C-alpha cells in the first residue's frame, strides 16, 4: 500500500489568504533579503516531512536567517502578525519536532553557522545554531578536543541537540549534551534579545550557567517553543589517547542490568550501553525476525578512554572484577567479541555509520521513530520484556538500547523502530507499537525525550497538575501569542 498522499496544512489553521500571504512574504523578504524567504510550494514541501511517523504538514513560509538582528526582526513581526514560527536546523530530530503543526514559518538557521569562539584552555566553545557536529568536530580536532557527541547525522546541529537534551555517546562521563551548556543567547518570541549564564553578566564570559538562577532551563527541553537560541556556550574536553572497549554478552536482560549497575558504580566508562540482538544487527531486521537460538540476546560495550596505560590498566582491573562478580552471581554474562562495524559505529564520533541511518533503516526503508526515554535503570528489564511482546506483536524487531547516564542510576531506554515509510499501513503499525511501548514506560517512571506530539499528550495525561500549570504559565509569559513551535508540547 502506498503512503497517504495528502500533506496536511497545520490542523488548527485555515489556509492563509493569498493577498495576506503575499504581504507577509514581502515583509519577510524586506528583512532577510529577496533570496531568503519563499512561499514556493516545492520548498515548503521539502520542509513538510521527516523520517518519523509524524504526519507531514506544510509550512506557509520558509525563511533563512543570517544574523541575530534578522531573527529579532522576524520574531517581532511574527509576534505582531501571530504567525507560528518553527525553528529548524536540519530536521533530523526523529520526532517531527520541526513539522509545523499549525503552518506558519520555518526559520532555517543553517547559514548561522559560525564557531564564534573556541577556548582550548578554558575548554569551552561558543557556537551559532547552524554549526554541525561534523563542523565542530573538525574545529575541535585541531586542539585534540571533543564534545559529548551523539551518534546523529554529522550534518545535524550541535545546538539543537544540546537544547533538546540530546544524548551523547559519552553520557556516562560528561552527562547529557544539555548538561554541557555553559551559557546562552536567546531571542524571545517577542523579539527581545536575552542572555542567560555567565555571558549575561560579562559579554565575553561563556563558561558557566551557574551559580545564577538557572534560566537556561527556560529554553532547554522546550523543543524550540520558548525562544530562539542564537548563541550557545558548550563545554569541550580533551581527547584521551587510549581507547579500550569492554564487550560482554548475555542471554537475559536482567543479567545485563545487573552487570551495568555493578560496573557503573565505578564510574570508569565514557559510555556504558547495552543493545538487544536486534539492534546489534547492521541493519535492524525488518520485519521482525527471530534471533538465532544460539545468539546471546544482549550485548554491551563499555567505552573507556584513558590518558595513560596505567589508567587503562586500572580501568581494566575494575572491569575484570565486575565480570568475575557477575559470573559468580550465576548470571549468563560472557566476555564477547562485538562486530567490528557496530563498534566503529559507536566509537568513531560523530558517527557517519549511525548518522546515515544505515544501521537503523537500510532494510526497512525510509522511516524511523522510537519510544526514546530516560528511565530508571531498575525498570529497564521489566519494561524491555513488555516492549518485546508489543514489538513482536506488531512484527517489529525489539531493537532496544539501554545506556547508563552519569550519576543517578537511570538512563536511556529506547526501541529504535524502522519502518517502511512508503506504506501508510506499515507507518501506522509502527506508530501504534511505539505509542503502546511509550505508555508502558511512562507508567514505570520513564520520560520520553524529544517527544513527538503523540508522546507529549501521553506525558501530559499523567503530569502533576502543578507541572502543567507552571509550564503553561511560563509558556504564556515568554510567548504570549503562542507563536513558537505551537502544539509541540501538547499544551
Amino acid at each position, binding site marked *: 500500500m502506498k*503512503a497517504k*498522499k*495528502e*500533506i496536511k496544512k497545520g490542523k488548527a489553521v485555515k489556509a492563509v489568504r493569498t493577498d495576506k500571504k503575499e504581504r507577509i512574504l514581502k515583509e519577510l523578504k524586506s528583512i532577510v533579503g529577496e*533570496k*531568503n524567504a*519563499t512561499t*514556493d*510550494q*516545492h*520548498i515548503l*514541501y*521539502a*520542509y513538510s*516531512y*521527516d*523520517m518519523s511517523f509524524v504526519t507531514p504538514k506544510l509550512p506557509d513560509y*520558509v525563511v*533563512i536567517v543570517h544574523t541575530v538582528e534578522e531573527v529579532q526582526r522576524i520574531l517581532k513581526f511574527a509576534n505582531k502578525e501571530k504567525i507560528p514560527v518553527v525553528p529548524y536546523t*536540519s*530536521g*533530523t530530530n526523529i520526532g517531527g519536532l520541526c513539522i509545523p503543526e499549525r503552518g506558519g514559518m520555518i526559520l*532555517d538557521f*543553517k*547559514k548561522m553557522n559560525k564557531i564564534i569562539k573556541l577556548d582550548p584552555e578554558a575548554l569551552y566553545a561558543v557556537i551559532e545554531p547552524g554549526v*554541525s557536529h*561534523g*563542523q565542530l*568536530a*573538525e574545529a575541535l*580536532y*585541531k586542539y585534540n578536543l571533543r564534545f559529548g557527541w551523539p551518534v546523529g*547525522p*554529522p*550534518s*545535524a546541529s550541535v545546538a539543537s541537540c544540546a537544547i533538546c537534551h540530546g544524548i551523547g555517546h559519552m553520557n556516562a562521563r560528561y552527562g547529557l549534551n544539555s548538561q554541557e551548556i555553559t551559557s546562552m543567547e536567546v531571542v524571545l518570541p517577542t523579539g527581545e534579545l536575552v542572555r542567560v549564564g555567565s555571558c549575561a553578566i560579562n559579554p565575553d564570559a561563556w563558561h558557566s550557567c551557574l551559580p545564577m538562577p538557572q534560566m537556561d532551563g527556560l529554553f532547554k527541553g522546550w523543543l524550540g517553543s520558548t525562544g530562539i537560541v542564537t548563541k550557545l556556550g558548550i563545554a569541550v574536553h580533551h581527547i584521551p589517547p587510549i581507547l579500550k572497549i569492554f564487550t560482554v554478552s548475555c542471554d537475559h536482560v536482567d543479567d545485563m542490568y545487573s552487570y551495568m549497575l555493578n560496573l557503573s558504580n565505578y564510574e570508569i566508562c565514557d559510555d556504558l550501553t547495552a543493545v538487544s540482538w536486534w539492534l546489534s544487527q547492521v541493519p535492524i531486521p525488518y520485519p521482525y525476525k527471530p534471533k538465532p537460538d544460539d545468539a546471546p540476546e544482549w550485548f554491551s560495550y563499555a567505552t573507556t578512554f584513558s590518558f595513560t596505560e596505567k589508567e587503562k590498566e586500572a580501568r581494566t582491573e575494575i572491569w575484570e572484577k565486575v565480570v568475575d562478580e557477575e559470573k559468580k552471581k550465576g548470571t549468563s554474562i560472557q566476555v564477547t567479541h562485538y562486530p567490528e562495524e557496530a563498534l566503529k559505529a559507536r566509537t*568513531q564520533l*560523530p*558517527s*557517519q*555509520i549511525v*548518522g*546515515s*541511518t*544505515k544501521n*537503523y*533503516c*537500510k*532494510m526497512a*526503508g*525510509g*522511516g*524511523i521513530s522510537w519510544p526514546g526515554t530516560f528511565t530508571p535503570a531498575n525498570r529497564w528489564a521489566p519494561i524491555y520484556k513488555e516492549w518485546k511482546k508489543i514489538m513482536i506483536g506488531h512484527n517489529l524487531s525489539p531493537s532496544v538500547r539501554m545506556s547508563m547516564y552519569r550519576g543517578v542510576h537511570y538512563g536511556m531506554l529506547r526501541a529504535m523502530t524502522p519502518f*517502511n*515509510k*512508503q506504506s501508510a499501513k506499515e507507518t501506522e503499525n509502527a506508530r501504534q507499537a511505539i505509542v503502546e511501548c511509550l505508555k508502558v514506560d511512562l507508567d514505570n517512571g520513564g520520560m520520553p525525550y524529544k517527544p513527538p506530539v503523540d508522546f507529549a499528550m501521553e506525558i501530559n495525561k499523567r503530569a502533576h497538575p502543578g507541572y502543567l500549570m507552571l509550564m503553561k504559565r511560563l509558556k504564556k509569559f515568554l510567548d504570549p501569542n503562542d507563536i513558537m513551535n505551537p502544539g509541540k508540547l501538547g499544551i
Partner: protein
Amino acid sequence: MEHWNNGLIKKTEMENRSNGNLGMGRLTHRSIIPSFRGLKLEEVIMKWNIPSLKELEDVLWRCTACGTCKEAYEYGPPSVSSPICPAGEEFSFEGFLSSRGKIAFARGILSGDLKWNDALIDAIYKCNVCGGCQSQCELDHKPFIPEIIEAMRRKIVADGVGPMPKQKVIAQSLSSYDNPYQGPRRVRLDWTRPFKKQGKPIKNILEEPASILYYVGCTGGYNVPVRVVPQATASIFHKLGLDFGILGESEICCGSTAMRLGDVEAFKRVAESNLELFRKLHDEKGLKTIVTSCAGCYRAFMKDYPMAEEYGRMMEGIRVIHTSQFLYDLYMTGQLKFAESLPWKVTYHDPCHAGRHLTKFIIDKEGTQLWAGAYVKLEDKDCLYDIPRQLLKAIPGIDLREMRRIKANSYCCGGGGGVMTGYNDWAARNAGIRIQEGMETGADHMVSICPFCHYNLNQGAQGTGSKMKLFDLTELIDKVLPEKAS
C-alpha cells in the same frame, strides 16, 4: 537514396537551417547520419533501459531524510567536514540542498502534491548532478541518486515543460548541428589548424584506418579557450608516434549534455549513431581503442551508453579509455618518458564525470546476499582518482598539493548538469569557490582532466581575480614530453 551533404546531414535539413529554421522539424530518432563518408551504418533499433521517475518510486522511498548527504564528512581522525552541494551553497533552502532535497521534489511530483511550475522546474535544473550528495548516502537508493534527479528532468522534457530556456538552445543545437554549441561542422576542426601548419595533419579515421580513435568531444572542438586540450592531446600522440585518427567534421556529440538535461530522445539519437559508427569503424577501419579527453564523453560512453541493450554487441572488441588512463598505461610500460622538469606547485581537481560518477555500485538484485534491491557496496577502481595524480607526480618538478575536498568528496566546479548553460553566473561563482580552495593549498595552478571543468574553473578564477589557472593534465605532459619520444 536522398541527397546527402558531405555524408552527414540530409540536404533538406540543411536547407531548413539555412532558412533560419533552427530546431524546427526536429530530426526524428533515426533520420540522422545514415552514412559517414561512405561508411554505411546498420540502423540497428536499440532498446534502452533508462528508468522513468515512476520506475524509481520504490527506490526513492528508501531515503530517510537523514541529511547525511548535506556535508562531506570523514571521520579521520582528524575528521573533516565540508559543504558538498553547490546548489545548497548557492540557494540554501532544503530542496535545493543535496539528494535529501531532490528526493523531496521527486516524492512530491509522484504523489501529485507538486505540479509543474516555473519555480519547480527551475529548482530541478539548479543542480549539477555532480553526485557529491550520493557519495555520502548509505542507503539502498544510493546507486540511483543521479538517476532520480535526471529522471525528474526526463519527465519535465517528456511533459514538454522544460528544460530551461537557455538550455533549450542546447537541444535545438543538438538537433541542428549535432553539437550543443551551435557550431557549424567545419568549425569543429579549427583546433587542428596548428597541426596542419606544422605539416603534421591529423588522420581522419573515416578515410584512413587507425586502431585508435581520438574522440575529441564538442567542448574541446568548439569552446575556444578549451581547444588547448585536444591540441595538447594530439601533440602528445604525435610525439609518441601513435597511429590515431579523429572523426573530424563528422564527429557528433556523445549526447551527454542532452542526457544530463533530460532530453533522452536527443541523447538516444546521437548515442545510437555513435554506437553504430564505432561498430563500423571497428569492422572496417580497424578501430580498437577510443580515447577521449572529455570527462563528459567518457562518462556517457561508460555509464549512459551501456543502458542500450545492444551495447555489448556494438562495442565488442572496442575499448573506451580516458586520455589520462591511456597515457598512464604508456607511462607504466615505459613508452611515455618525461624529459623536462616543470617546477610548478599544482593542485588537482577531480572532475565529477571522470571521478565519482564512474563508481560501480553492487546491488543484490536477486536478494541472495542481503535482500532484493539492497545496495551492497561500491567499487571505485574505475574512478580516475589516483591515475591523474600519479601521472602528475611523475612529472619532474611537480609539487602536488591536495585540496580539502578530493576524490569521492571532490567539490564540483559547478559547470555540470547543464548549469554552465542554464545558469552561467552561478556556475562561475561556484568555480570561484573551488579556485579559492585550490589557492588555500599554496598551489599556483590547478590541474584537471575535463574540458568542462577547464573552462568553468578558468571563468571562476577570472571572476575572483585569482591568478590561478586551470590546466589540463595533457597540457602539462605536452610541455615536458620531448618532440620525439624515445
